[in-house]
């Protein structure tokens, strides 16, 4: 009994910091609809700033003052980010802002490294709260008890702010109906800035308040990000009580998981999330999103047409140039081009379902890595020849997509995205955990192409044919009745259903199709690298693809591969410098601000202005 109570208290104490960070993310999403990937970075900043302040400010007052100040300082940093980075792109297509926040992550990572150095910092202990209290003979740290006491207080203060003050009422109104608040004459941009301040301050507070339980290190931004997203989604995006309840559920379950199923640490929270979302597709306290037929911001998407003769000639010329790489370039040029081609196909497959279907997936790496693992497992355990493995890779990935898509498509919008993330993470932990078969994170090695394709040149041509073929196939699919039906389901599900289109099924097929195409890329990948590791299933890989699709331009047909090619090439160049993350982050932010329609969208505009392309009807 004593142990049970002590475990419960541990869970409740852990929920504290998690709730603060999650409530901040939830608030920001609720009001601004921005999925703030950089939220973990603000949490990390809170820890570092708090650490520094605690070195300066002495005693008990200094300790708590440092935590409070850390929150305020991080909030102000958030304001700077909001004004400089996000404000210029509010009118961009939905979710485009997450690309900007991704750039912010990179910038903050390098700046933190510059300022505080690489070494992990052990957080100072709270003055006066260093010991334990014996409860039923079980030791419970005093600081844990302090956290358990503080968290409801923070939650209550937030609740009061949101439900009892005028500002709070505006915030709540904005979560319900943004346009209406604008119509009421409230300056929407300052409301957004204020909410961003509050959200980031909460993240900073969470980072500072956990210092006595841990410390500050450079990996904590990504480490907390997934848990925070899970909490927010389980609670329901935008719901504070939901975030609190979910933080408690996750933390407490985790404590018991650690004790009774020690191996469960990787998957537990994702399993909980999947279960919750299956029964409550919008989280415990969330409401259905009003992402709607009329909710699209930005310019309407243009009708698509197969490329004209001029563009076709241009593409053909480009392909000829690509084909000449082995003649003109070095061996490394072939390797780099192979890498880029594979990534382009991966990005294009995501772009197909995101651009044509409006299905934003945060877990597309499941199918890229899935395809890679299918091929690698076949080679390792069945001595399958490369050719067959490459055919079976997309089949395996497609099958996985059929199953995962069936569950995920019960939800929509951000919840759909989070479900895909959860499944990618489940697949990742399966591969990671099941070391006997998959090699765990030691991966599967020595998976090389058949003899005829083992030279870099031949493999490059193989990749060229398959990837360009795949991208053209995706492109053709967009012009086919299937692609049109998919777009119809996205443009107006109401009308599509009323003309006999089973919208969920068409999205399901598209999901599986995109998964299979990603699987082709994965199959090629494993033979080009000779090995595969769980990294290929990681969230970071999914985000890579997502970022390039947005950078390339969602509302264009070529956004996926153009974004992929530019991003990979730029990254290959930038990583040669010491502070490449800073440079890449700033570059991403720059592209987001200067070209909110993505690279292709902006190039198209340029092309129209100089008369190379025919202008859109609404611009004439």
């Amino acid at each position, binding site marked *: 009994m004593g*142990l049970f109570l*002590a*475990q419960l208290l*541990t*869970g409740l104490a*852990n929920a504290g910091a998690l709730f603060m960070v999650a409530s901040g993310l939830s608030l920001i999403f609720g009001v601004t609809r921005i999925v703030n990937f950089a939220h973990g970075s603000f949490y990390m900043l809170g820890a570092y700033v708090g650490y520094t302040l605690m070195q300066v400010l002495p005693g008990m007052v200094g300790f708590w003052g440092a935590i409070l100040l850390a929150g305020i300082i991080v909030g102000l940093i958030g304001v700077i980010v909001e004004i400089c980075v996000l404000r210029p792109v509010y009118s961009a297509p939905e979710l485009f802002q997450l690309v900007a926040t991704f750039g912010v992550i990179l910038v903050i990572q390098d700046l933190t*490294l510059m300022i505080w150095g*690489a*070494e*992990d910092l*052990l957080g100072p*202990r709270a003055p006066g709260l*260093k010991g*334990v209290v014996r409860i039923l003979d079980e*030791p419970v*740290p005093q600081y844990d008890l302090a956290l358990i006491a503080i968290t409801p207080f923070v939650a209550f203060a937030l609740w009061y702010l949101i439900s009892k003050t005028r500002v709070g009422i505006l915030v709540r109104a904005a979560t319900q109906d943004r346009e209406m608040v604008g119509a009421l004459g409230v300056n929407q941009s300052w409301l957004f800035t204020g909410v961003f301040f509050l959200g980031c301050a909460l993240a900073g507070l969470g980072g500072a308040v956990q210092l006595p*339980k*841990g*410390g500050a*290190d*450079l*990996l904590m931004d990504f480490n907390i990000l997934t*848990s925070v997203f899970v909490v927010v989604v389980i609670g329901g995006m935008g719901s504070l009580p939901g975030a609190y309840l979910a933080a408690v559920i996750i933390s407490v379950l*985790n*404590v018991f998981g*650690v004790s009774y199923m*020690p191996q469960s*640490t*990787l998957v537990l929270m994702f399993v909980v999330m999947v279960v919750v979302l299956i029964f409550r597709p919008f989280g415990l306290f969330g409401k259905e999103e009003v992402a709607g037929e009329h909710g699209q911001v930005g310019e309407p998407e243009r009708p698509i047409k197969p490329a004209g003769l001029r563009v076709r000639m241009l593409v053909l010329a480009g392909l000829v140039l690509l084909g000449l790489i082995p003649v003109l370039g*070095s*061996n*490394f040029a072939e*390797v*780099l081009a192979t*890498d880029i081609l594979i990534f382009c196909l991966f990005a294009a497959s995501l772009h197909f379902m995101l651009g044509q279907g409006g299905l934003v997936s945060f877990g597309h790496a499941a199918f890229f890595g899935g395809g890679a693992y299918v091929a690698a497992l076949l080679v390792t355990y069945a001595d399958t020849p490369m050719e067959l493995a490459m055919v079976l890779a997309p089949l395996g990935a497609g099958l996985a997509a059929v199953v995962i898509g069936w569950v995920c498509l019960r939800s929509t919008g951000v919840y759909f995205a989070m479900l895909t993330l959860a499944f990618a993470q489940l697949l990742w932990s399966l591969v*990671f955990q099941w*070391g006997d078969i998959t*090699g*765990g*994170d*030691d*991966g599967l*090695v*020595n998976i*090389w192409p058949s003899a005829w394709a083992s030279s870099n040149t031949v493999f490059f041509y193989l990749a060229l044919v398959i990837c360009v073929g795949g991208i053209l196939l995706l492109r053709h699919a967009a012009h086919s009745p299937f692609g049109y039906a998919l777009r119809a389901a996205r443009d107006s599900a109401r009308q599509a259903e009323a003309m006999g289109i089973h919208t969920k099924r068409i999205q399901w097929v598209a999901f599986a199709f995109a998964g299979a195409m990603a699987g082709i890329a994965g199959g090629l*990948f494993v033979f080009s*690298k*000779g*090995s595969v*590791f769980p*990294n*290929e299933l990681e969230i970071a890989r999914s985000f890579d693809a997502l970022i390039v699709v947005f950078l390339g331009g969602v509302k264009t047909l070529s956004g996926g591969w153009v974004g992929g090619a530019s991003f990979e090439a730029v990254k290959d160049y930038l*990583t*040669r*410098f*010491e*502070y*490449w*993350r*800073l440079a890449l982050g700033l570059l991403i932010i720059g592209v987001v601000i200067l070209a909110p329609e993505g690279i292709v969208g902006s190039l198209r505009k340029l092309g129209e202005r100089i008369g190379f392309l025919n202008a859109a009807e609404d611009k004439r």
Partner: protein
Amino acid sequence: MQRKTFLRGLIGAALLAGTSPAAFAQSGEPIKIGEINHYKRMAAFAEPYKKGIELALEEINAEGGVLGRPLEFIFRDDQGDPGEAIKIAEELMTRDGAVMLTGTILSNVGLAIASLAGEKKWVYLAAEPLADAVTWSAGNPYTFRLRASTYMQAAMLAEAAAKTDAVKYATIAPNYAYGKDAVAAFKEVLTKLKPDVEFVAEQWPALFKIDSGAEVQALERAKPDAIYNVTFGTDLAKFVRDGNTRGLFQGRTVYGLLSGEPEYLEPLGDEAPEGWVVTGYPWYDFNEDDGANKTFVDAYQDRWGETPKIGSLVGYMAAESIAAAIAKAGSTETEAIRAAFEGLPVETPVGQITYREIDNQATMGAFVGTTALQDGAGVMVDWTYLDGADYLPSDEEVKKLRPSE
């Protein structure tokens, strides 16, 4: 290519592929070594490692380099991504003119490069990765490893553990391949030495996401006599703090793999645990009797104005090993270097090590000692240096472990 700040890089972009010729004007073209590491993602570990390499290079080149040519490392960041590392390896070997590859801390990246090395027939010296697979199950003739592997270090601790009365053991290790290997090796060796031991709990926190309060409670619940710890970095810091607060370590011996390395012990400050039996690097304790160890520590502190880490030593030894191999080979041809590495003896700060012919594993050992607090910092006392050669399985077993041969 030298590491540059981004601004300088932009200015010098045109000279990207260039080296720094002025520094090596002495004689002939430099011999280039491709060094791939996670300089950003694991900065705390990679920076001392790099400084160790640079120190060794300065010494080697001051004495005329290798084969009359200066030795040069090309440092590249792979972001901790195996696929990226493969691409960079290709570039280093085919475009930048590197004669062999070295580097990586993370085992998975090391394994990826090892696989590439075997396929392309390039020599790769895995300096830091600990995974047993690098030289055993995934070993190949072109891949060599410097550091004592997980198995070797775990065996050293198991040997120490077998001498005590403790019977009931609990383990805590990060939930990934290194942690699993480390626990498996410890169990295997300890059970062999002392068949009546019992493992009463196995805790597997996710790497760098430990829920230390819960883990400590779970360990306490199992009431073990002793604990075997494999966590490191921030996980270790949290585990130690919660364990101390809740009294987990009272009356129990803890065996900590790598826990005595400065990388992990220093951040703990005055909260460093006392009385743990650990592998690590007691650089602060070297005196004139320790000869080359002392010389290295002094030289390192002179050069960089900071204290060495275990990574510094490994980096230094990696550069020394490569220089020795090329000198022995008498050429920069891959096959010659590979052949030279087989059975290569190298004089290092920790004494002579040998790259075994049987599995390409170096016999570098580890320092084993007990932790204590001195002047508010954790240190190792009563340490000894154990030669790695004594903690490897028999030759027959090793042969079985290398399926590729």
